[in-house]
C-alpha cells in the first residue's frame, strides 16, 4: 500500500462481510494512479456473487470522495482463491465468529475437505451441517465440543 488511492481501495468493506475489507479478501489486483485518474483491477470471487456490483460502486464512490476519477475493471484470470485472504483477514473473520478457510489443494479437481476449527473454542471436532449457507462463500457448521453452530468460509 503506497498511495492514498491504494489505501482507499484496499479499505473498502465487503458488503456481505462488513468486518473484512476487499484488501483483506485479496480481491485487489492492481491500483494504478496517473494524476487524478485511478485504474483499479479487481478479481471477482464467485461468478454469481451478488456483491460484485456493489463492490464496484463502493470502490468508485470511495475514490470519487477523494476527488479521484476511478476506472474499475474485473478480471477473471488468475481466478480468485481463498488462499489470497490475508493473515489479517483470517484473524478478522475468526474474531467475527467465522472459521477461516483451509488451504486449497491445487491438484484437486473437486472441492476439498479440510478440518475446520471452531472459532469460539478452537476445537477441531466440528461437523459440516450443509453444503450451502447464507452466502455463496460460507457453509454452516457445528462444534461438537462447545455445541455452538457457526459458519465457515469454504476453501475455494
Amino acid at each position, binding site marked *: 500500500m503506497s498511495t492514498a488511492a491504494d489505501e482507499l481501495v484496499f479499505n473498502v468493506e465487503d458488503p456481505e462481510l462488513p468486518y473484512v475489507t476487499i484488501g483483506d479478501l485479496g480481491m485487489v489486483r492492481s491500483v494504478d494512479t496517473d494524476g487524478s485518474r485511478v485504474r483499479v483491477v479487481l478479481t471477482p470471487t464467485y*461468478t454469481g456473487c451478488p456483491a460484485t456490483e456493489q463492490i464496484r460502486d463502493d470502490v468508485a464512490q470511495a475514490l470519487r470522495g477523494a476527488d479521484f476519477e476511478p476506472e474499475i475493471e474485473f478480471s*477473471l484470470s488468475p*481466478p480468485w482463491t481463498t488462499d489470497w485472504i490475508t493473515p489479517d483477514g483470517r484473524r478478522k473473520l475468526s474474531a467475527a465468529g467465522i472459521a477461516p478457510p483451509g488451504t486449497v489443494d491445487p491438484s484437486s479437481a473437486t472441492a476439498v475437505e479440510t478440518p475446520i476449527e471452531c472459532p469460539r473454542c478452537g476445537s477441531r471436532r466440528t461437523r459440516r451441517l450443509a453444503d*450451502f449457507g447464507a452466502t455463496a462463500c460460507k457453509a454452516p457448521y457445528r462444534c461438537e465440543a462447545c455445541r455452538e453452530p457457526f459458519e465457515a468460509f469454504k476453501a475455494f
Partner: protein
Amino acid sequence: MTGPDLLPSLQPSLQPSLLTHLLRQGDRALVLAQRLGQVITHAPELEEDMAIANISLDLIGQARHLYTYAGEVEGLGHDENHFAYWRSAEEFLNPQLVEQPNGDFAVTIVRQFFHDAYALHYWESMEASSDATLAALAARARKETAFHLRHSQGWVVRLGDGTDESHRRAQLAIDSLWRFTSDLASIPDETELHDSGVVPDSEVGERWRDTVVAALADATLDIPASTSTSTGTSTGAGTDMASSGWQGHHSSHLGPLLEELQALTRAHPGAEW
C-alpha cells in the same frame, strides 16, 4: 447496416460457431437457474432451499459471463440482457434436460445431478481452451460446479440407497429424465471449435457417462435399458431419446418458463435496477 465489429483476438471463421457455443452454454445455465428459482421456498427442508438458491445464483453468474462474452463475439453491441430477455424459445439452445419441470424432489435432484456431472466435465475440459476468456471463466466455474455436483450426487446416493419410497421415486425420476440426457452425451457441429482448440475436449460425453454409471451403481439405481446416449439415438426398445436442445428443439415446457423470466423486461423495455 454495418457488419459485426469482430474481436481482434478471434479468428473470423470461428465467429459463428463460437457464438453458438456460448449461447448453448449460457442458455443451459440460465434455464436451469430459472427452474431452480421456482423451487426456492418449496424444498423439503431449509438447508435445501439455501442450497438450491446458491446453486441457482452460481448458474446465473456463469450465464452472465457467457452472455457478456457472446455479445463481444457477436460484435453487434448486445449485452448480457439481450440474450437472456429478448430471444424467444425457438432461439434458445439449452439441452432439453434443464427445461424439464421440477416434479418431486427426486426429479429436481436427478435432473441436477445429470446436469452437474456434465457441467463439471465441461468446465474441467474448458480450462485448457485456447480461448483465454473461456479458459479463465472455466477455472472459476469448475470449482463452483464441483460443489454443486458434490451436493446433487450425494442426494442421489441417499435417495437411491435410502428408503423403499425414496428409491422408488429416484428410479422413477431417472426413468422419466433419461431420454433428455442425449444432449449431454454430445454437442453437434462443433468440429471447428475442437480443431482450433477452443473446445479442446470432444469426450465430455464419455466422461459424463462414466460419472453417471458409477454414481447410479453407488445409489443402487438402474440406467434405463435399451437406450443409447453414445449415439444420441434410441436403439428401439426403450424410450425414444429427445431431439437436440443444442439445436433449438425444445419441449413445450420452455416457452412458459421463458415467459416468466422475460415478462418484466418486456413490459418495461430498457428498465434498469
